[in-house]
């Protein structure tokens, strides 16, 4: 397997706000974060409450922060304000009926969630996908990665005082939204997969549109790169903030860009390949310092790499059917269901009884934009799962927030919280 640590030319030691090169690798004994304490305050601590309705908490996260002057002594996150009972609801739905629910967990990357669930259900049922479907799913995953990272860039730059990248990022999102709409009919809640295939094949217009997107998208990335990467304010507010060592990152079960920014070269696409990711050429960016700045660099580079994968996928997109040829799994076309007795029976059975899965359980992890999205399905032989468990990457990443924010300033807490890239729909499910 071709590996791995890509030389990030962006990650050269940057400058802090004073213009000094100020970064040490984490392994070299990093200086203790400076604790500012106000002499007049006589050690009296203050509690402030951020959220659940606060523009900088990216949703309905609530943080209770204990402050000594302006220094964060302790952060206690309170989550669950968006708990919607997904997993309970999944026990009352057929496998295909769960797919619309997956859109709404991590609503920043709906298509990747659809793929994650469908892969788990297919492993449970032992279904082999068609080549065209495999490539289309790769396209869906990488498009999701791009739009999710674009939201992250936009909202994080707003949190740190830069408004312009938000508008640029959202322009790119609108272009992907147009493509998603062309494919699935929905901008956000796509429900693009079905167990054993896709909800629809793509049109030639879609392929042409995506090709155009792939060609022009790097320009925006370079613009964002030019505005942020060496910007003194950006660098000053992100470098050395919220650092996690590789050891800690593993101990806290971090995943995705959070883990890789800390220097652990672990990417599910490379290490436990699903779909046909092992045949694509792409690099896994790995950070060195584990701070907010490195997470930014890793995500920016991932956008480039996603673009690279999209380009390869478009080149190799094979013809042939999208869905597996099994009438018990895939709905017949409506015209046949209306005229052909056998097709009608299959249609009826699928809609009323659903697709039955054999007894057993399956876990599939995929590399979502936020981290490893795991889907754990347990079946007792009926058409509805006994247990549908989502391993929520941003929930687990967020649990490390108290550790990361300790000893930093209150304003850094905003940057750290933004760098986790949470989406509350998935944190709370």
């Amino acid at each position, binding site marked *: 397997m071709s590996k791995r640590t890509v030389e990030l030319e962006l990650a050269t030691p940057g400058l802090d706000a004073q213009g000094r090169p100020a970064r040490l690798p984490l392994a070299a004994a990093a200086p203790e974060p400076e604790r500012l304490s106000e002499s007049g305050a006589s050690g009296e601590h203050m509690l402030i409450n951020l959220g659940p309705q606060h523009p900088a908490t990216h949703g309905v996260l609530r943080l209770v922060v204990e402050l000594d002057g302006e220094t964060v002594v302790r952060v206690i996150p309170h989550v669950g304000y968006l708990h919607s009972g997904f997993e309970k609801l999944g026990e009352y739905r057929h496998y295909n009926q769960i797919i619309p629910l997956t859109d709404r967990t991590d609503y920043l990357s709906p298509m990747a969630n659809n793929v994650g669930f469908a892969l788990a259900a297919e492993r449970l049922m032992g279904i082999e996908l068609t080549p065209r479907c495999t490539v289309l799913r790769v396209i869906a995953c990488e498009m999701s990665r791009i739009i999710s990272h674009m939201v992250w860039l936009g909202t994080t730059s707003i949190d740190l005082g830069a408004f312009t990248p938000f508008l640029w990022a959202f322009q790119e999102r609108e272009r992907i939204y147009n493509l998603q709409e062309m494919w699935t009919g929905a901008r956000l809640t796509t429900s693009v997969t079905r167990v054993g295939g896709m909800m629809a094949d793509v049109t030639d217009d879609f392929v042409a549109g995506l090709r155009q997107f792939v060609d022009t998208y790097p320009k925006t990335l370079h613009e964002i790169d030019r505005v942020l990467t060496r910007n003194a304010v950006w660098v000053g507010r992100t470098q050395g903030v919220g650092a996690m060592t590789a050891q800690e990152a593993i101990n806290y079960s971090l995943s995705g860009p959070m883990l890789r920014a800390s220097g652990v070269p672990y990417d599910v696409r490379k290490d436990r390949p699903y779909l046909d990711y092992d045949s694509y050429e792409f690099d896994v960016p790995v950070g060195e310092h584990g701070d907010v700045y490195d997470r930014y660099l890793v995500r920016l580079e991932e956008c480039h790499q996603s673009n690279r994968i999209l380009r390869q996928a478009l080149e190799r997109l094979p013809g042939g059917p999208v869905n597996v040829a099994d009438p018990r799994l895939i709905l017949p076309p409506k015209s046949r269901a209306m005229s052909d007795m056998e097709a009608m029976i299959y249609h009826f059975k699928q809609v009323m009884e659903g697709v039955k899965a054999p007894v057993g359980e399956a876990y599939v992890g995929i590399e979502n934009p936020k981290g490893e999205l795991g889907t754990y399905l347990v079946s007792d032989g009926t058409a509805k799962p*006994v*247990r549908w*468990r989502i391993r929520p990457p941003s929930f687990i990443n967020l649990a490390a927030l108290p550790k990361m924010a300790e000893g930093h300033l209150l304003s850094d807490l905003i940057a750290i919280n933004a760098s986790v890239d949470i989406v509350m729909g998935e944190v709370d499910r």
Partner: protein
Amino acid sequence: MNPSVETLRATFGSAIGRAVESCGDTIVYVERAALLEMMSWLRDTPGQQYDYLVDVTAVEYRDRERPLELVYNLRSLERRADLRVKVELEPGGDLTVDSIVPLWRGADWLEREVYDMFGIAFRGHPDLRRILMWETYAEGHPLRKDFPLRGRFSRAEQVRQALTANPEAHYSLEELSIAAAYDELPPDMRERLRRGERGKIPYSE
């Protein structure tokens, strides 16, 4: 079948129950008494090195005869191997298991979620509280199979209880020592607090 199972059986003997394979994953059932020791062994022994905790969850089956299963997904980043460890619990019986937070800090919120959703208590957890539902939630543990989809109370009662919940609960400094919300806690929680099971102040290493 994952070779770790044989080594486990050789080391822990009868504490290791049956091992099965499902969809390419190896599942090994263990006694709950040996759980913490075994997890620690799996993490630290050279050749095993399951250093990454993927997930902690639980499963209750529709078949009421089957026990409640507590599921740990482990992974070795180095060796790229996976192992799923299960502990069987009697749904009506004692639902207390040793916490693995001392081994993996990442288990903190995952165990709280299992406690919230299934009612499985973790001995030695630093801050075992409900995490997704609010602290005074009175309807039970939602992911148990005897919990109805729409909850136990009528919708009006649910709205009333939700609106009377204090959105400012846990504001005071005392809350950090988990004393302030004492009166609002459900009785079983208060009982546990009294027995001092709640442990130390959260995140206060």
